[in-house]
């Protein structure tokens, strides 16, 4: 992954050490709040503030980690809320990827008049940020009786201009000669989409899938407006509701934070390479 390949070893060595040190310090600083969250999730809530004044090694480590908080979490309402988040996000990714990839294909592979205008609509729709129009949309959804339904929570996530844009950029790099050849061999447009574009675009699809997933997983305002009853409340909203209460079990709160972070984290870690590729290169270069 490294870019700079200097051919002078002596200069490299000092720079190498310095860069390594700075890189490590910054990395650790970014890790710190999460690490603290993790450690606190593994010990009783009463210990959260026990080791802060003054700071000691015990602030960031515990000798008796246990999963009690997680057990409490998963058997409670908060666990259910996290399950709701998971369901909403997975459905969004599957439905959203299909719809967005199809749209990207229509915008990149098939030349037709008015393509520019339609691409303009896509761009405009992603320039109008979702959160900005969430309040009028919530008003509309209430009229359509979609409040406190999973459909109401999922729908806004599946038509994602950003995902369309990402996939389209990748699709545009696929040579038109390839399409022409396939068409001459008698492959229909759906076949071109299904057999040529989709398999060649895995990195873009994974990147776009990640975008769709994170949109839903990180959503806060929309679920706050749309689904706050016990059966539909999502993890982040349920967690932040703890915030205002008097007797907060900090251990459980941190455990929920860890799970809500760990799930997207694992997905990002697995997809990281594809994600970066989807932003930068086309597989055909």
């Amino acid at each position, binding site marked *: 992954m*490294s870019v700079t390949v200097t051919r002078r070893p002596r200069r490299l060595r000092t720079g*190498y050490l310095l860069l390594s040190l700075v890189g490590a310090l910054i990395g650790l600083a970014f890790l710190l709040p*999460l690490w603290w969250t993790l450690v606190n999730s593994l010990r009783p809530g009463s210990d959260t503030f026990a080791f802060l004044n*003054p700071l000691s090694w015990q602030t960031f480590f515990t000798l008796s980690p246990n999963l009690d908080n997680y057990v409490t979490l998963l058997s409670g309402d908060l666990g259910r809320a996290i399950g709701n988040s998971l369901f909403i996000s997975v459905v969004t990714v599957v439905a959203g990827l299909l719809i967005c990839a199809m*749209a990207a294909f229509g915008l990149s592979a098939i030349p037709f008049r008015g393509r520019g205008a339609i691409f303009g609509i896509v761009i405009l729709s992603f320039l109008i940020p979702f959160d900005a129009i969430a*309040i009028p949309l919530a008003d509309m959804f209430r009229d359509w009786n979609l409040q406190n339904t999973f459909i109401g929570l999922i729908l806004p996530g599946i*038509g994602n201009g950003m995902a369309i844009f990402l996939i389209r950029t990748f699709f545009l790099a696929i040579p038109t000669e390839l399409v022409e050849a396939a068409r001459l061999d008698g492959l229909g447009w759906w076949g071109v989409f299904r057999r040529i574009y989709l398999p060649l675009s895995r990195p873009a699809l994974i990147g776009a899938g990640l975008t769709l997933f994170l949109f839903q997983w990180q959503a806060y305002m929309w679920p706050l407006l749309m689904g706050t009853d016990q059966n539909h409340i999502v993890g982040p*909203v349920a967690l932040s509701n703890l915030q205002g209460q008097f007797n907060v079990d900090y251990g459980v709160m*941190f455990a929920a934070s860890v799970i*809500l972070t760990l799930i997207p984290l694992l997905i990002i870690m697995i997809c990281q390479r594809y994600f970066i590729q989807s932003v930068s290169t086309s597989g055909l270069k």
Partner: protein
Amino acid sequence: MTAPGARIQRPRAASPLPGTRRPRRRSRLVWRPTLVALAFLSPALIGLVLLRLAPAVVAFWQSLQGGGILSGGEHFVGLDNYVELFSSADFIGSLLVTLLFTVIINPVQVAIAFLLAVLYTRRAAGSGFWRSLVILPIAVPPAVSAVIWSVIYRPDGLGNAFLGMLGLPAQPFLTSPTQSLTAIMVLLSWVGVGYWMLFLIAGINDVPTELYEAASLDGASAWRQLWTITFPLVRRPLAFVLVADTVSNFLVFAPVQILTKGGPEGSTNLLMHDIFNRAYTLGDLNTAQAEVIILVLLTLAIVAVQFRLLKSEDAA
């Protein structure tokens, strides 16, 4: 070219465009692709129009209505809601806070993301690992990061514990009108910088290695290479990141709603929160819709200005 016989055997629908270059099929050539493309596009288009564009139109329409139940039903009031907004000290305050926030947080985040991207694309021990640690917080949902930092920012929390270790006095953070906005910017940057860095790393990795080799042979220092090779060649990802970051920071809501509710003294009352507050706490939906329209227009203006800037840079 497909053989004529093969074309006859095949049903039309299965093969929309046989013999593409034949003049006889001209009208089909023009219309078929359009229909096919629209078929591919329609689910997304319907979704985007209904879920993104329609609400903006609805918001605009409702922003021109007023009255409500007390004064005999909704009726057209023209720009009254906008006039009311601009004469409201809360709204003006919110606008100023949002502008201050925008002007500070975006350049800072993009600059940090760029420098980190440069740092983590150099060859160094454990570079990939340390980079992952910076990226790590992007997995934290905004609401969760707000909850975590609410504990860090408590008077007896981790933040003051660190200040104590350095021998500095305890700070009020979120309860101080002068510190609250900065406190929110710090937590947002913790989450955001790694994400933007990913795009810039991708851009930097796209720069051909030969350019650096050539520059090294010519004796250009690493610092010089950074500004004469890396920076100009990642200008496009930088542009994208700046636009996207600005828009996303314009819409910050969760941390404000969870941590400060806009306070203290309106010091963190960013536009999104002001809209939410107006619509649901004050129950003035029509005026809130007017504010939605202003927010959307401001967002579009920012994007337009930034694209213009980048374009003129390209021309230069």
